[in-house]
């Protein structure tokens, strides 16, 4: 967010510049930052270039298009959400939802049908019989020991 109070015309120029600067990757190659964010010398140069283009009357989109024309789509900090790239935008979220649904179904199936379960001797899943006094006594003793 930027808090700068300026006249309307300059404000819209600033908005156009920011849109471009936040969409284009700084090509210094050291860290995946946008031109707006990167603190290196190359980013400063690119920011000056963009300011100059905006002052010539271009819009943010036109500036972006110019950079893409020269450097290819890889100059965008994130790919356009179209075509193959939708796999990147929607894939993980879609994958999450699908996996959760699948897990939910699998768990439901496990719960309903005993799955490969070989209950160990003295299965704790079975409720204690009311007359299992010896077992209860042993239980009580062991809990005391562990304290």
């Amino acid at each position, binding site marked *: 967010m930027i808090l700068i109070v300026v006249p309307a015309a300059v404000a819209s120029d600033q908005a156009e510049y920011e849109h471009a600067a936040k969409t284009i990757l700084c090509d210094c190659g050291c860290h995946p930052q946008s031109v707006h964010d990167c603190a290196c010398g190359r980013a400063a140069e690119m920011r000056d270039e963009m300011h100059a283009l905006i002052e010539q009357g271009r819009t943010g989109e036109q500036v972006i298009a110019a950079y893409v024309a020269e450097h*290819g789509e890889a100059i*965008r900090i994130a790919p356009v959400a179209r075509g193959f790239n939708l796999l990147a935008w929607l894939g*993980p979220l879609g*994958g999450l939802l699908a996996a959760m649904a699948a897990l939910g179904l699998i768990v439901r199936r496990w719960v309903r049908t*005993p799955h*490969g379960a070989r209950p160990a001797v003295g299965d704790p899943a079975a409720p204690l019989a009311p007359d299992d006094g010896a077992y209860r006594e042993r239980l009580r003793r062991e809990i005391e020991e562990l304290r």
Partner: protein
Amino acid sequence: MLRDLTNAIGHWALFLGLLGAAWSVVAALLGARVRGKGLQLSAERAVLATWGLLGLATACLVAGFLADDFRLDYVYHYSSTSQPLPYKIGALWGGQAGSLLLWVLLLSGMACVMVLTNRRKNRALMPWATAVVGATITFFLVLLNFIEPPFLTSAARPDGVGLNPQLKNYWMMIHPPCLYLGYVAFTIPFAFGIAALVTRRTGDIWFRTTRRWTVFAWFFLGTGVLLGAYWAYIELGWGGYWAWDPVENASLMPWLTGTAFLHSVMIQERKGMLKVWNALLVILTFSLSIFGTFLTRSGIISSVHSFATSDIGPAFGVFLALVFFGSLVLLVSRLDNLRSEHRLESVLSRESSFLFNNLILVGMAATVLFLTTFPMLSELATGSKVTMGPPIFNLVNIPWALLLLALVGVGPLIAWRKASRENLLRSFVLPGLVGAWILLLLGILDARAYLASAGALLSALGRLDVSAGFQEFKTFYPAITFALGGFVLATVAIEFWRGARVRVSNYEESALVALGRLVWRNKRRYGGYIVHVGVVLVFFGVAASGAYQIEAVRELAPGEPLIVDDYLLRYDGYRLLAEDDYFGAVATLSVYDSATGKPIGTLEAEQRYHPNLMFPELRETFQHVKALGETGSPQYAEGVAGLYRLVTLLERQAGREVKTPSTEVGIHSSLSPLAASRFGEDVYVIPLAIDPATGRANLRVFVNPMVNFLWLGGLVFVLGAHLAVLPDARERRRLDAAIALEERSVAVA
């Protein structure tokens, strides 16, 4: 010559170490087959000897740095005569060969600890565990001996290139060793996992006996990640701390799967379930550790972390493939021994919530992997390269992370097997109310913005504009984060309160004593809860500093003020300096509360230039000016100004850069609890340019709300992890009993 001797010793120590490691593998495997005690003992001794040899080799390389032996290529590239001593030592891990040496030194040291602590237990597993660890050490030593030898020499040179200036920072120095401790330590649980599969001892001994290794590895990896983030925050100067750089991602992925592993083994311990999944997780985690280092070193992806490309990529690729696919084959062959002892009884149960927790953690790791490698996929599929920058990672990962945060609260309180209505009501109504109340409060405070975003979100969905839709949804993240965080903190508080209350009523202890004893007697559990609190704090810091950051860019002359948010900054003045291996200007600013005018603090922001000392005129002038500074000469400032002019002149003549710029960000952190509304907030100043003659400074100022919650959360995380690994007599007794039981049952079988 002593230097020649030391380099030769180092070189041969590496070779002998390779032989020792290879022998430890052969002897261990033979010992497992032949059941002879002698061979395994020999293997273990070889492990110890290898460590000694690697220690010697490392000492020889460090000696090369300390002696400024620039005939050594490695020392030449990463050190220089003017490099401060700590960075000469730290330069050991500044490059490919040295960092490989550090890795294998740490691994070999851990192998020694593994051997020494298991002299009288786990004897059936040890031969295989020794073989696995030994094989990994052997692989790295093959690299060090034949592909990236650190003791290569060339003709004598007067001075070295030196470390990249951005690496000359305390946090950057400890970040790699910290990460390596994490990566490397995961080898031990993996080795025991493989040993368990091979010997068909697929109970829970293998991960219970390596629990502290797992927590240790997970802790150092997590801390290493946070240290890297902290360094990025204070050094790279963009106001952020995480850019989803491929190598950052490579360290996050094994941490995510390691976290999943840490949790899911609890299910196996209690219920004998998820055996296949746990084996798979430890294989994945170790593979991702190796993959991480492969990504950094192979040159497949370029990044600030990348080392120079070489043949190392294919070698790592082969090793990784062997490890991953070999382990999977072994796992599949042992499926019969990995059957569950119990079954899942309900979707609403702790087992189930741990399963979902695992799903999300592994899903996030898969997401990060997918997005990191997407540029390559895109090039293969469409021929055009794309960049995966922070925007897509942030937008796509955050929903996962928020779900995970919700589970952090649900998991510890929900009942085992099947949560009854009573359990759900008793445990979750209060925390749920806390979360809902926070959500409502935040919604009301910023109602107009939320309603506008909701409207825009619906319209974007209507237009099928995916990225715009994500952008609008982003507005809700902070509120959801705070609500869920409140929910989690409430669940943790309930756990502590309930446990303490039982002690107070049963033993008549005072509340404080009860709390202390409760935690002390259940260090693992309550240490874990403290870690969860740390995680919540990190989430708070990320949410607030990401969503509510304020920025201003202004050019100021000395004396001029600037108002940003509710701060008034005054540019007090500047001074020029030349020291260590840089010259530049320092701007001093005072920070005041803009409403009351009360002074809050001061900060200094530096713009530095590191001169290329290969240019003799520049080197001499620089040394001369530095000397002026040391003697307090009045010509000092003018001397530094002269350096600026000289550099400009040389650059015009040479047609290229003769200096490397770096900045030291000026940060003022509000850490006093008295100033509650700005607690954890940073005022962050980056000098974009400072004119040495007039002092006019182009400054970029950020206000980062709650960003210190990240580092504070990290400290809480450290506390919790330490607590969880402290020795526990009861745990030791039970594990010893379990091991004895298994030995008896195997002997009978």
